[in-house]
């Protein structure tokens, strides 16, 4: 690739042409060879016939080699660990990892220390992201103070300061009255409430309830813990008319409940993470704590149902649920290990498997990680369109490789996908016209 413009860390020249690309835009359905021109950080023009005459003087040229040029991925569920657990991840290290993974926007959970439950927390994340100058970092704010599930936060002020939604992170808002008031109050400001849908009184276990847990002698969490909370919340959504998003759906029963709610016209969306359609409870195997995740990896029938729900669109978005943990948090007896998978760098490749297996078209796969989460969060990115931010990912759709957590740019390497074969490799990541990652650079 011949360019002097887009090397990492350097400012793009005014106009850059991405030529010889396979343009993929899930929003418009565009899938055609062509070129795209970036000017001042935005997409100035794009199309199949563009620049057929060649690139003009003064325009930087990036030859895409016929590879896929798509909107940069929007990962709507990540944990940045900053402030408070900077030994696991920082906004800067997560930014590098995201860029490596083709992710140009992340939405961070508020479960830091201190919790992001006031405007100063939102401002802190924004300032650190500006300083890191890598990918775009949005943050959710807590739905209740200190994530305690009791008192609602200043949703109006927090939204004015840029919070993209409200959630108690890894905790469900368990009390139905509090959840009702959170939903009700958020409605005044048209804000999104994101729930970790798990009935806590049923979720004291450490892995999926069933034969595997029984054989391992581990306490189980029934699939019903998720369905019960989703179904309760849907009743509250019906009561309040709020916008609701169920995070990392892992069970067939929850999918069915959400499918029904959508059919009834409720403003409900949901996401899942790649591990829920890639792995099942057997991944826990011999007490592998890297496969400990919340909600837990489920039975094979649930895994298949999640894959099918992503394909049919009941599951709107795929997010990494990036949960970086250091060795000390994972090298523990299974019951004591922290749940979570570092996923920013494997989101695209693992999700592209749905395309490679023929379960879903390429544009639809990409849509689950671009325009759909953008729509849920109200972001203007996520599409290839004139005037849109030049947040782009260039990737080799076919290239096979094996996941190597040791090579992660994230500070944490906790992934159950060691040596897992995947297809599809990020070549370049561009944020507002700036190249923030380039393979081999």
């Amino acid at each position, binding site marked *: 690739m011949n360019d002097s413009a887009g090397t990492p860390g350097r400012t793009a020249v005014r106009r850059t042409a991405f030529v010889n690309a396979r343009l993929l835009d899930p929003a418009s359905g565009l899938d055609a060879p062509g070129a795209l021109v970036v000017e001042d950080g935005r997409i100035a023009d794009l199309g199949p016939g563009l620049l057929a005459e060649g690139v003009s003087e003064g325009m930087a040229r990036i030859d895409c080699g016929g590879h896929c040029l798509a909107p940069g991925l929007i990962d709507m569920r990540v944990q940045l660990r900053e402030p408070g657990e900077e030994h696991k991840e920082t906004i800067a290290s997560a930014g590098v990892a995201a860029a490596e993974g083709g992710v140009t926007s992340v939405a961070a959970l508020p479960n830091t220390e201190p919790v992001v439950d006031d405007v100063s927390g939102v401002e802190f994340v924004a300032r650190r992201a500006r300083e890191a100058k890598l990918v775009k970092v949005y943050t959710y704010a807590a739905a209740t103070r200190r994530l305690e599930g*009791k008192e609602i936060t200043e*949703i109006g002020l927090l939204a004015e300061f840029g919070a993209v939604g409200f959630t108690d992170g890894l905790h469900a808002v368990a009390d139905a009255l509090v959840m009702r008031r959170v939903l009700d*109050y958020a409605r005044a400001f048209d804000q999104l409430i994101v729930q970790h849908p798990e009935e806590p009184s049923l979720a004291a276990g450490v892995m999926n309830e069933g034969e595997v847990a029984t054989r391992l002698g581990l306490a189980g969490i029934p699939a019903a813990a998720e369905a019960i909370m989703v179904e309760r919340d849907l009743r509250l959504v019906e009561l309040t008319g709020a916008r609701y998003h169920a995070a990392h759906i892992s069970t067939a029963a929850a999918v069915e409940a959400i499918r029904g709610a959508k059919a009834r016209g409720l403003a409900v969306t949901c996401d899942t993470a790649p591990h829920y359609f890639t792995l099942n409870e057997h991944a826990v195997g011999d007490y592998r704590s890297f496969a400990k995740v919340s909600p837990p990896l489920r039975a094979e029938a649930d895994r298949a149902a999640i894959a099918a729900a992503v394909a049919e669109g009941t599951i709107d978005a795929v997010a990494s649920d990036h949960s970086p943990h250091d060795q000390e948090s994972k090298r523990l007896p299974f019951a004591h290990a922290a749940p979570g998978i570092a996923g920013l760098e494997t989101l695209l490749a693992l999700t592209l498997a749905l395309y490679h297996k023929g379960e879903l078209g390429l544009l639809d796969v990409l849509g689950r990680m671009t325009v759909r989460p953008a729509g849920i969060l109200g972001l203007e990115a996520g599409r290839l369109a004139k005037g849109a931010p030049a947040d782009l990912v260039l990737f080799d759709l076919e290239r096979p490789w094996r996941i190597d957590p040791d090579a992660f740019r994230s500070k944490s390497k906790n992934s159950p996908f060691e040596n897992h074969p995947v297809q599809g490799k990020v070549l370049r990541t561009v944020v507002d016209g700036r190249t923030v990652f380039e393979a081999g650079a």
Partner: protein
Amino acid sequence: MTAPGLAAANLGYAHRHLLGIEGLSADEISFLLDLSENYVELSRRGNKKTALLRGLTIINLFFENSTRTRTSFELAGKRLGADVINMSVAWSSIKKGETLIDTAMTLNAMHPDVLVVRHPDSGAVKLLSEKVTCAVINAGDGSHEHPTQALLDGLTIRRRTGRLEGLIVAICGDILHSRVARSNIQLLGIMGARVRVVAPPTLLPAAVERLGVEVFFDMKEALKDCDIVMMLRLQTERMHGTFVPSTREYFRFYGLDADKLKAAKPDASIMHPGPMNRGIEIDSELADDIDRSLIREQVEMGVAVRMACLDALTQDLRGHNLAAAEVGPEVGPEVGSGAGARS
């Protein structure tokens, strides 16, 4: 204009009690407001006292703390020449509905002529009214009604703008728990005003639009082209994360300040039933703005309206005054003499 005490005798108010605004007619409300006007004049005189209710006994029975309303009723009764007794009952020490009825029976045996009752439970005043033989005025029951507040608000507005019909009135704040809001929604609706309510959804009762109001979550939208902005008090215990996240956020989005008021008509007036939380639901300077704020006027109208209500409810006791016939057509006496017919 009729003289105080005279208008009541034409039976313009044909109920034994005043338990709420709901169920009153526009004529009855206008009658009470007209009558109140006379008492405004009386209260501004040097000698404020009449002998209209001489010999009658009024008991102010308050199961909930209130200085302002109780004082207003006390003054009203005394200016009309009645004997006024104040009874404050700590409701926390009385738990059962039966005890409320016992209290009613006990008081009834003392032969009061009017009971003015405030109670923290919705419907409690009505329950009590069914057990006594005298007239009962609801001085506020739970989150249900506070009819004399709505009447004094109506009078204040009418004196300011000359009418109620066609006005746009925005009621802002804790609608959910407010008896003031419910009574005003009723009264303003009956009198032909357009009522809007604005609050965060956590402070709006379910199906409030079925009461004939327009519902808003955004203050500026709600205040657009308003004639009257009526603020409500937010109780302290509801400000810190249960119904509203914080006082700071509440004032930012739902507190009345000069910026939000710009959306209303240039001559829009501000009202508040008191006591105010300055800096929470209303900016302090606005509350004191003599050109915009009707808050002090409301307090003055309170006494006049309560005098009118006492007058109207004791008309039977004082006998019909034939001189009142000039005011309007006489209503059949059986309407007014229904006292005691209800169990």
